[in-house]
């Protein structure tokens, strides 16, 4: 195929960049001119209708009020966690936890039971469909952003969500790092940049060194349980107490009312970023509740939350081995950085005015699209070198954690460790892998237990199994073992402490196909039609080009025939037939595409002085 061939219908598959946020999600793509947001904000809300259909996005957000018990928001806070980790948030969330949620939380939504990765998969599927609609082509590959401070299980859960949604997740990229990419900070050839990212549910701080297009993360810190949600909950609790005394009734059990109140509280919070005072305004049937909140009170309320972000900032500066004075820029990311108190606290700590030029809700998705462009080969002058946020280690004697890969190590990073047997005839060795900074195993996060099994029985200490721990560019752990006596790969069983097993993910992928087989068929037809629209539109335009008039008569006839056939197939319910005709039209227009491209290149060359 000629390099000048313009593929009308089947361009190289586009990799999209997705910001899978706590409150809102967005999808973007890299264009010739730069990253571009595709379609609108998708609220990260999923709901199961009374007829058993799962919906995601704005529609689902409406269900929060009408059907709060079958609707989930902020599911990102539950990713990669067990039920004991989230007792605090469960008090505030209206949904119910199903049985057996120790290692993976299971939510009961109507008659459906769903895990956080499945819930996130519905949001991803919605974004995928939106992107396909705009691009007019199937989307199968994505870059998804995660908080920099996400641990292994949270990252794995995000990747699982992508797989369940039918997306090949080429890379997980850290949100603050993505934001740095979007800000085009590399125009400054050398420099040190801090990215402060306070979103709906998570907080990250990262410090990067820029060097000729390389974005090298020096250190990162954060809190995966801190964000705008916490501010909402503070205001919500005040309003609930007020209502209890005004109405002489505890309404905290009325989930629909609480969600309505939550919405009112969020509106007031957002208004307070621009006005000296705002009203929490609730109308529930005949009853009303109003409460004015001024900035002074609001600031006093949220000060502890803002303060909680500053400790990680100081630690991050220290870990990066830099001083505040050396930092050239500070970038603000995440909706919560619109709050004036947050901005002033950051300005005070970093002693410089932070960048707020880009929309803090969009900048992460735009950065994800830039990273997609890097992976796709369209962006060649940039490279991200990120780090692992947490140290990785193994349990040793006495319940101690022995670190193998230290936090803030550039990834991919690796370590090898030699294991042997302690008693004669021992046939397996259990390795407990952990993440965290503390010395005791009980204070660290358990990642998984690896069982090196089928070790040949021999005298204690004779076995030699070399285990290699590799944290890949996504920040996810891969473990392999080699028997040094035989030189062969050593088999092992992996039991993740939190999250889904591979088999469970596979089952969920199948299930999502099974139950939605009809949906799926319909979708395939719809997708094929979208593609047909794209190629028909492109061909129509091409037929107006002078190159078309210069084509041999028979080739023009072949194109017209292919158009007519595709139009006929278009209204059938058979996606294969439509795709078949798309392919035929594609073949018929190949020479035309080449002619147009050649003419365009000729024109472009004429217009420029190559020696300039």
């Amino acid at each position: 195929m000629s390099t000048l061939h313009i593929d009308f219908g089947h361009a190289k598959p586009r990799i999209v960049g997705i910001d899978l946020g706590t409150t809102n999600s967005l999808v973007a793509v890299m264009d010739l001119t730069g990253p571009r947001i595709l379609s609108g904000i998708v609220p990260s809300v999923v709901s199961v209708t009374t007829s058993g259909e799962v919906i995601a996005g704005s529609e689902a957000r409406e269900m929060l009020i009408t059907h709060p018990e079958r609707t989930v928001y902020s599911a990102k806070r539950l990713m990669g966690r067990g039920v004991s980790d989230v007792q605090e948030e469960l008090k505030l969330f209206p949904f119910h936890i199903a049985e057996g949620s120790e290692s993976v939380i299971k939510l009961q939504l109507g008659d459906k039971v769903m895990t956080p990765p499945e819930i996130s998969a519905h949001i991803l599927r919605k974004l995928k469909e939106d992107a396909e609609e705009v691009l007019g082509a199937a989307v199968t590959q994505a870059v998804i952003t995660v908080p920099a401070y996400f641990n292994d299980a949270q990252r794995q859960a995000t990747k699982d969500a992508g797989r369940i949604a039918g997306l090949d997740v080429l890379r997980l990229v850290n949100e603050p790092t993505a934001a740095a990419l979007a800000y085009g900070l590399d125009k400054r050839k050398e420099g040190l940049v801090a990215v402060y990212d306070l979103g709906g549910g998570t907080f990250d701080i990262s410090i990067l060194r820029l060097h000729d297009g390389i974005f090298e993360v020096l250190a990162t810190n954060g809190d995966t349980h801190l964000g705008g949600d916490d501010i909402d909950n503070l205001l919500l609790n005040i309003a609930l107490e007020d209502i209890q005394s005004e109405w002489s009734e505890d309404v905290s059990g009325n989930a629909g009312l609480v969600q309505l109140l939550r919405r009112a509280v969020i509106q007031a919070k957002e208004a307070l970023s621009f006005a000296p005072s705002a009203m929490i305004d609730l109308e529930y049937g005949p009853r009303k509740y109003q409460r004015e909140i001024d900035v002074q009170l609001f600031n006093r309320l949220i000060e502890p939350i803002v303060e909680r972000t500053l400790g990680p900032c100081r630690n991050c500066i220290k870990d990066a081995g830099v001083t505040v004075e050396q930092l050239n820029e500070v970038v603000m990311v995440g909706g919560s950085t619109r709050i004036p108190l947050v901005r002033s606290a950051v300005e005070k700590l970093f002693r410089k005015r932070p960048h707020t030029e880009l929309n803090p809700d969009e900048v992460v998705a735009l950065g994800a699209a830039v990273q997609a462009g890097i992976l796709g080969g369209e962006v060649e002058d940039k490279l991200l070198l990120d780090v692992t946020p947490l140290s990785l280690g193994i349990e040793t004697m006495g319940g101690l954690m022995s670190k193998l890969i230290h936090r803030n190590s550039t990834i991919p990073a690796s370590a090898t460790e030699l294991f042997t047997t302690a008693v004669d005839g021992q046939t397996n060795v259990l390795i407990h892998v952990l993440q965290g900074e503390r010395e005791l195993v009980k204070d660290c996060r358990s990642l998984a237990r690896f069982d090196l099994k089928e070790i040949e029985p021999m005298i204690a200490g004779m076995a030699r199994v070399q285990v290699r721990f590799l944290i890949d560019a996504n920040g996810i752990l891969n473990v392999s073992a080699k028997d040094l006596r035989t030189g062969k790969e050593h088999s092992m069983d992996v039991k993740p402490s939190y999250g889904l097993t591979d088999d469970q993910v596979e089952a969920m992928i199948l299930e999502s196909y099974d139950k939605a087989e009809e949906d799926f068929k319909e979708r395939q037809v719809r997708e094929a039609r979208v593609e047909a629209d794209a190629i028909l539109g492109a061909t129509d335009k091409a037929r107006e080009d002078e190159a078309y008039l210069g084509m041999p008569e028979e080739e023009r006839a072949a194109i017209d025939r292919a158009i007519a056939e595709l139009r006929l197939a278009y209204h059938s319910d058979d996606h294969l037939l439509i795709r078949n005709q798309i392919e035929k039209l594609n073949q018929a227009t190949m020479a035309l595409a080449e002619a147009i491209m050649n003419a365009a290149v000729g024109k472009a060359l004429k217009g420029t002085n190559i020696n300039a």
Partner: protein
Amino acid sequence: MKFYEALGLEPKLALDPDDLKKRFYDRSRQWHPDRFSRASSGEKQRSEEMTAILNDAFRALRDPVTRAEYFLRESGLELSKDAPPELLEEVFELNMALEELRGGDESARAQLASAQERFTGMLGEADASLAGLFARHDETQDQAVLEQIRAALNRRKYVSNLVRDVEKELNVHSAH
């Protein structure tokens, strides 16, 4: 030595930090998995392996102390964990002072602060003497110099642990 090979370097103890950084960035640009996302799975895996070793190597070699530790280990010399005998008396007094402060005796604070200053000074001296020894070893390849480096590293490690402990204790007690 694997880490030196990853950066295309001869195994030497004295390295130019700017040259090291440049080698790391140049190789990252070539080898990083981001450059191989559309390649075959074999190539992908190779890129990941090479980049992991490159990152591990840069991390170990950019700091003179971890670099020397790696060099010694690869040369078959293990670091000892014993206290350097010439420091024994001082360490004994220091531990007494630490105990006193833990017991609530604030008069030990001044003694600790001056000890901390003295030890921090020792760290600086240790770094300077290491730099000299690095140059001498690279020139002579003398095994005896390597032994001296090991002794200097042991001493430095011990002193740096002391500084860390004293700092921690002073901070903990000032917080109350």
